[in-house]
């Protein structure tokens, strides 16, 4: 506990250091080195604390009659591991990557501040400290989003972001207000001791869903996320997507499963419905993008959906008293939390490397990067495969566990759940398959094929710090996929602390299998699959090279006899997504294409125009914008009245109050 406090203080010390040494040559190594070191310590300390009994600490800060309560229980410890792993990785990456930063003075002070806030949110044990850290986290990341402030787009992203972040903070504040009651018992311990009545609990849950969900990127409150995440410097994008959204998940778990006690089944239906919708819509949005970082940001939305499906399942099972099933579902969700934080960070690292190498995030101007940036390409490929839930990598394990939870008890007594759970299964599968499609696109268009711009052709490999961070995270992807049992066992105390039940211990099983319930029911062995794959691949290569031909001849591409030297004839990101856009987009995005052909004899080029609408923005955000603009415009008349009219307002107020008083008496 005190170690974590030290970590936070170290990170905070990085803030003035970053501000003061921003332009000095030692500023970057100083700040990022400090951050990486602090996060490494914090991560190890948290890892050690997962199995330990909860530790608490109370500081005389914040609201004095309550003080700042800190608590490190297994759940918090697990999320701290995620936070600090991401933080250490991002800092390591930034050691090299930030060399290209044009505005270090706007990044260096806020990076450690952001990390400190992330850490603080997780260990906060009273509403004030929690929200304090929560908003600080938003503020620090906002500063990072608008670091490159000259681009109007970033400013808009920052604007939407901070507004939505404040909405989330305010809504959580309402939730805590309800939990604390009129007496203002803001300490979580007090809330836990007196869980609210059912009706109030429902309201709190909905508020928590809005508050934490909007920060996590739950549809339809996700709109800020694809704007803000790509706008920040890449290592910050990685932190925001990989870590900050997880902290939001933590907030939701803390409120819904810890502070509220047993949830009601309808709230589980709500969470499941939102989770399913988020997963599918997130990936569909992603498919429509050709900005690499924005595509990744939309995938964060998708993965948050998957995590919330797991949480929804856990809530449903818990509401119906199936503790073991709930433990399985929650383990799946937490597993995915870990996974996503790793591979999404890795993907953003890769995207950052691409961005610095080519100067663009637009996939239509990339291509063939695998030649210039083989290592980045390889680690990016690993991450793509992991996020597409392909075995033997980690993404598959958590989605597999989620499926197992769905399959374990799809038939709960309530009809809402009975229909919702299998539907979520189908949605999850759809999301996974679409994600694979999307990452074929992301990797295929950016790294494969021929360069679509000069910059892409001249791209060179990134620096060694970045490569180290990327390689480390890629190794983690494989490791967690091959030895999932170990991670499940590490997660068990956190699950136990929330649900009072846990998955059976995995590490003692033969061949290090993963068996959620019983071997006869289902099992998965990542290690064996990996070994089999490795053996099969190397065997076939060896056999063929030994007994058959090794001869290779390089030749121009065949392409059905029409080799074309121009890279422009390749498939683009847009054309790659066209079939899916046609299948799903027509319904959801009102996608259509218009073709304008010049009349015969005219040599003007033909034009194909793509039209896409954003249904959620149009239905939810645009009306708000319109209403506020209308109200502001209408009220603005009041700025330009004559003095007489202002006096009339006072006069009317007086007469009205007197009348009211007369009537009341």
């Amino acid at each position: 506990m005190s170690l974590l406090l030290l970590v936070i203080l170290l990170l905070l010390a990085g803030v003035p250091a970053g501000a003061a040494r921003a332009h000095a040559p030692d500023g970057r190594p100083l700040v990022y080195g400090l951050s990486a070191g602090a996060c490494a310590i914090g991560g190890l300390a948290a890892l050690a604390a997962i199995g330990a009994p909860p530790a608490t600490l109370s500081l005389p800060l914040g609201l004095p009659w309550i003080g700042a309560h800190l608590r490190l229980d297994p759940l918090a410890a697990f999320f701290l591991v995620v936070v600090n792993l991401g933080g250490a990785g991002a800092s390591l990456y930034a050691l090299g990557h930030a060399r290209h930063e044009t505005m270090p003075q706007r990044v260096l002070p806020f990076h450690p501040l952001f990390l400190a806030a992330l850490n603080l949110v997780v260990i906060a044990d009273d509403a004030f400290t929690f929200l304090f850290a929560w908003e600080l986290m938003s503020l620090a990341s906002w500063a990072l989003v608008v670091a490159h402030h000259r681009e109007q787009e970033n400013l808009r992203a920052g604007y939407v972001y901070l507004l939505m972040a404040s909405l989330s903070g305010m809504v959580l504040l309402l939730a805590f207000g309800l939990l604390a009651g009129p007496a203002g018992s803001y300490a979580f311990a007090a809330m836990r001791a007196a869980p609210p009545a059912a009706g109030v609990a429902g309201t709190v849950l909905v508020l928590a869903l809005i508050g934490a969900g909007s920060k996590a990127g739950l549809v339809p409150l996700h709109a800020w996320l694809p704007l803000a995440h790509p706008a920040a410097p890449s290592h910050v994008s990685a932190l925001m997507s990989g870590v900050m959204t997880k902290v939001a998940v933590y907030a939701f778990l803390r409120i819904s499963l810890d502070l509220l006690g047993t949830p009601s089944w309808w709230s589980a239906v709500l969470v499941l419905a939102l989770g399913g919708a988020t997963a599918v819509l997130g990936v569909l949005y992603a498919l429509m993008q050709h900005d690499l970082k924005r595509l990744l940001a939309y995938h964060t939305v998708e993965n948050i959906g998957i995590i919330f499906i797991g949480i929804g399942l856990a809530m449903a099972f818990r509401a119906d008293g199936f503790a073991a099933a709930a433990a399985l579902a929650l383990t799946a969700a937490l597993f995915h939390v870990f996974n996503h934080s790793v591979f999404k960070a890795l993907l953003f690292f890769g995207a950052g490397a691409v961005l610095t190498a080519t100067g663009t995030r637009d996939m239509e101007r990339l291509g063939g990067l695998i030649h210039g940036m083989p290592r980045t390409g390889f680690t990016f490929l690993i991450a793509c495969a992991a996020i597409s839930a392909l075995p033997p990598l980690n993404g598959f394990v958590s989605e597999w566990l989620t499926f197992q939870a769905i399959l374990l008890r799809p038939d709960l007594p309530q009809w809402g759940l009975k229909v919702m759970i299998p539907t979520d299964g189908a949605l999850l599968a759809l999301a996974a398959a679409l994600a694979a499609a999307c990452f074929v696109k992301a990797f295929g268009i950016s790294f494969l094929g021929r360069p679509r711009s000069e910059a892409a052709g001249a791209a060179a490999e990134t620096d060694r710090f970045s490569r180290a961070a990327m390689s480390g995270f890629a190794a983690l992807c494989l490791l967690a996929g091959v030895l999932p049992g170990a991670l499940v066992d590490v997660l068990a105390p956190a699950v136990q602390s929330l649900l009072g039940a846990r998955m059976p211990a995995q590490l003692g099983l033969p061949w290090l299998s993963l068996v959620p319930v019983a071997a006869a029911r289902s099992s998965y062995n990542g290690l064996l699959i990996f070994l089999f794959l490795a053996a099969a691949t190397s065997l076939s290569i060896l056999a063929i090279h030994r007994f058959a031909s090794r001869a290779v001849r390089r030749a121009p591409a065949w392409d059905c006899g029409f080799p074309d030297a121009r890279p422009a004839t390749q498939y683009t990101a847009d054309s790659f997504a066209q079939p899916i856009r046609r299948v799903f987009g027509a319904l959801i995005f009102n996608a259509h294409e218009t073709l304008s052909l010049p009349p015969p004899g005219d040599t003007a080029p033909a034009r194909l125009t793509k039209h896409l609408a954003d249904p959620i923005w149009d239905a939810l955000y645009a009306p708000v914008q319109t209403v506020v603009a209308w109200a502001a415009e209408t009220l603005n008349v009041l700025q330009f009245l004559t003095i007489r009219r202002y006096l009339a307002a006072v006069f009317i107020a007086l007469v009205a109050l007197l009348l009211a008083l007369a009537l009341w008496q």
Partner: protein
Amino acid sequence: MIALAGILGAPLIGAALLAAIPGYRLSARCNVLASLVAFAAALLLLHHRPQAGRFMLVDDLNVVFIVLSTFVGFTTSLFSASYIGHELATLRLTPAYLRFYHAMYQLMMFGMNLALVSNNIGLMWVAVELATLSTVMMVGIYRTHEALEAAWKYFILGSVGIALALFGTILVYLAARPVVGGGLDGMAWTVLLMHAAGFDPALLDVAFVFLLLGYGTKVGLAPMHAWLPDAHAEGPTPISAVLSGLLLNVALYALLRFKMLLAACPGGIAPGPLMIALGLASLLFASLMLYRRRDIKRLFAYSSIEHMGIIVFAFGMAGPLGNFAGLLQMVMHSLTKSAIFFSVGHVAQVKGTQRIAEMGGLTESHPLLGWGLVAGVAAIAGMPPFGVFTSEFLVISSTFARAPLLAVLLVLGLLLALGALLLRLSSVAFGPVRGGTGPTGASFVPMFAHLALVLVAGIYLPAPLVAWFQHIAALLG
């Protein structure tokens, strides 16, 4: 007694002297010195309080206001020194007006301090009137069309408000007379409060309506707010800072005193709902008005209306948490808003305009000024680690448990305000550099001192301070 003499005497003597001193450097120093003496005297009050007399009263409640008032008065005088120097250099002010300005500044401080320490509702009324008149003078000091119009508007609306407040004061006296008897006792706070339980509640109700509207005009509550944005925008910026930071508080203080009276009188209407309604109306109205603002000082003036709305709302919700939050919010708002005006004043000077559209990229052209403004806006928008967050946290969370709908409206207003402020901040502080890029010649000490205080308050509130505020909150009922 020395302390009281310092608080009241320093500004009064200062005013007399400054009316006579011609030189800029000397008068600016004298101004700072007089403000410092008043502040030091106010600090003395913390240590030792004089007995309440028939005219003077120093108790837990007004000490907060006095110390805050003299402190902001002091820092503003520092800011004013560097600000006015620039105004003289650019010939916007002539030396004759400078003397007038400094004298009026001290006169206003005197008025406000007198209002705060007076134990007599009549004397307090006179003092508020005095402070108003002196600020009217200063608002019109630039003699431009806009400034004159702003001053005229301020004057007319202020006079009507003050007239209503006087009528309310007379009614309070009438209510007190049968119980307390006539004479000075009938107007002394201490006596009134002691016997409030025996007053005629119905008469007190009517009185409160007049007082609420009357002093509410000074507080800047909608729909009596109209003078406020223009007065802030057109006067010299130090005056905007003290208007927002102090004068509104003084009027609020008066309102609170009367509210206590009403609360102590069983059978009367609860003042809460009225204050809540006016507070919410001000908050929502002001936050929507923020969107179409083109003048940066007017923008922050509307933000003051918004915050006064929150504060009045919090005091209306009452309860130990509500009152505590209101008090804290008031202190934080004074410090933050004056810091913002310090920044804005220099910004307007270096950019040569107050039009938001003509300034941009401030964090790049003037990093200290720009980041100070960013921090100030973040603070005023209720972001941690600044103190406003603490008070807004308390207001919202304590309200929601008792009246969910009100809390939702409150949140709505806060978000609307945040949206507008952020929008303007983005274009002023970030983006491509627009407007002048010359050196500032600014003194950053006052601005960063305020921000530092707000920052510390957001993280750590000393236990004695909290105990004291809690005590006041309990007093307020």
